[in-house]
């Protein structure tokens, strides 16, 4: 019996297992009930692992999504930085263009009102020498530029052309030690020769110590050198002092003070007179005059008072005149040592005295009260 069981053990176990499951199945189908215990075991065994896997999955997805989001954000930030940089550069370029347009407009206006024939040009480079003050402009012999022509800006002279190439020209600046030009002072008409010193200041040489040059005085080209037409501004004197044999006069060249980007080459110069009045580089704003009815709004003058006079000196003169009339004094006629009029007398009282020398009636005493001061004209 034992050996028989061993012989069919596998099949027996199989049949037992299948039979048990069939019983289980039949029970469920027959009773229409579930074997909850087995399902609870299975679900309890599986779901925690599923929950862990789901947590790992969702966490991984979240991390990946965040990474991708941050990665995209970083890319977007990089793109925005690039865009910002590009816009900054563009903004700088447009500002520069606008300034250039303004300068060109000023050059054009100066060119239009100047009798000399000039050609506008742009500075495209500088010289290579350590101490040389040389620049290159983008107009050469093809543009009508010849060596020796004057180069200026509306503010003053810049230099002169030393070499003209087909498409460019070399300009020796006024600050170069080799530069020289004849100049004349605006106020005292003192002639001299302006020389560069290698830096931002120039010196006017060959002015006698006896001649008068003031600080702040402006120098203009004299037209003696055959390069610069007469009447172009050169600069203002910064230092003027007596020297050993000649006066030491230093000036700040006005043509270089606003930078050097666009210049004018004088193709055919026309001499102009030296301006008498100080030249103002920039226009000055003047306040418009007050409207005609503005004086009516001011405080009313006292009865019998004189109309307002223009300046403080006029008012002072009028006051002394009233004082003199009130006391019967004529200015300029009294002998030396005679009693001067009482200048402490109030002008209102002096005017009343001049009109009514007798003592005023009591009722009129109130009219002799000082009238309000007239508004002072600016």
């Amino acid at each position: 019996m034992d050996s028989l069981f061993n012989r069919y053990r596998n099949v027996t176990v199989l049949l037992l297992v299948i039979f048990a499951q069939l019983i289980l199945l039949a029970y469920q189908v027959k009773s229409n009930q579930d074997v909850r215990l087995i399902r609870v075991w299975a679900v309890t065994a599986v779901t925690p692992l599923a929950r862990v896997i789901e947590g790992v999955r969702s966490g991984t997805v979240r991390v990946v999504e965040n990474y991708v989001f941050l990665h995209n954000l970083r890319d977007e930030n990089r793109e925005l930085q690039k865009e910002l940089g590009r816009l900054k550069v563009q903004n700088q370029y447009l500002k520069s263009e606008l300034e250039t347009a303004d300068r060109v407009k000023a050059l054009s206006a100066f060119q239009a009102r100047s009798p000399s024939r000039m050609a506008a040009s742009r500075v495209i480079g500088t010289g290579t020498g350590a101490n040389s003050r040389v620049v290159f402009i983008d107009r050469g012999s093809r543009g009508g530029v010849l060596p020796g022509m004057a180069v200026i800006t509306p503010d003053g002279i810049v230099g002169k052309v030393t070499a003209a190439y087909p498409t460019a020209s070399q300009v020796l600046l006024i600050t170069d030690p080799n530069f020289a030009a004849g100049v004349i002072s605006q106020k005292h008409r003192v002639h001299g020769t302006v020389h560069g010193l290698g830096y931002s200041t120039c010196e006017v040489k060959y002015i006698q110590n006896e001649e008068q040059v003031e600080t702040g005085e402006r120098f203009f080209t004299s037209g003696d050198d055959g390069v610069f037409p007469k009447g172009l501004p050169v600069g203002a004197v910064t230092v003027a002092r007596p020297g050993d044999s000649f006066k030491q006069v230093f000036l700040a060249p006005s043509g270089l003070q606003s930078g050097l980007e666009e210049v004018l080459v004088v193709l055919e110069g026309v001499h102009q007179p030296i301006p008498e009045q100080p030249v103002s580089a920039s226009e000055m704003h003047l306040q418009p005059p007050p409207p005609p009815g503005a004086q009516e709004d001011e405080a009313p003058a006292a009865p019998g008072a004189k109309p307002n006079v223009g300046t403080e000196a006029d008012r002072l003169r009028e006051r002394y005149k009233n004082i003199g009339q009130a006391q019967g004094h004529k200015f300029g006629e009294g002998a030396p040592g005679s009693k001067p009029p009482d200048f402490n007398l109030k002008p209102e009282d002096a005017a009343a005295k001049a009109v009514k020398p007798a003592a005023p009636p009591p009722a009129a005493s109130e009219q002799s009260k000082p009238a309000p001061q007239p508004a002072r004209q600016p």
Partner: protein
Amino acid sequence: MRDSTDLRLITSARETRVTRFRRWGLVAVPLGAILFQVYIPRFFQFFQFLEMPLLVTVYFALMRRDQIGGTFIGASIGLVQDSLSHQPLGMFGIVKTLVGYFAASVGMRFDVDHLAVRFLLGLFFYCFHQFLYWVLARALLGQQVPFDVQQMFFVGLLNAAVGISLFHFLDKLKERA
């Protein structure tokens, strides 16, 4: 004691080549297969065609070459699969019990380490599993379950192909003598 010794002596040489697996592998791999079956198709419906618990049952039954062991492995995996399904308990249990038993029987007689044999066994047991389930569903539950032979064959091929890779991976879990 003596009977047990005699029993070992009379077993064939092939029967003595019982493959031993690590214990945690015997629990973790079927559990992983069940988890795969209930979890992965939620996100990738393409994997619904995979019958991972069946492939694991076949593998362990083939390798252990123990009919009783195969029977219990199939019954256990099938009952757990039943527990997570809407069907009454025992449907997958009975089917996989038979699959485990017959797979162990085949493993005792064939060299199941060969790829072609594994592929054919995977295909055969998938078709057997599906057919038996269809029969049980009709006979015991009275359900009109559709049965498409062509589709079954095609999906069986895919399962067999996946089974080759899975069996190769599970071979790493064998205990070395």
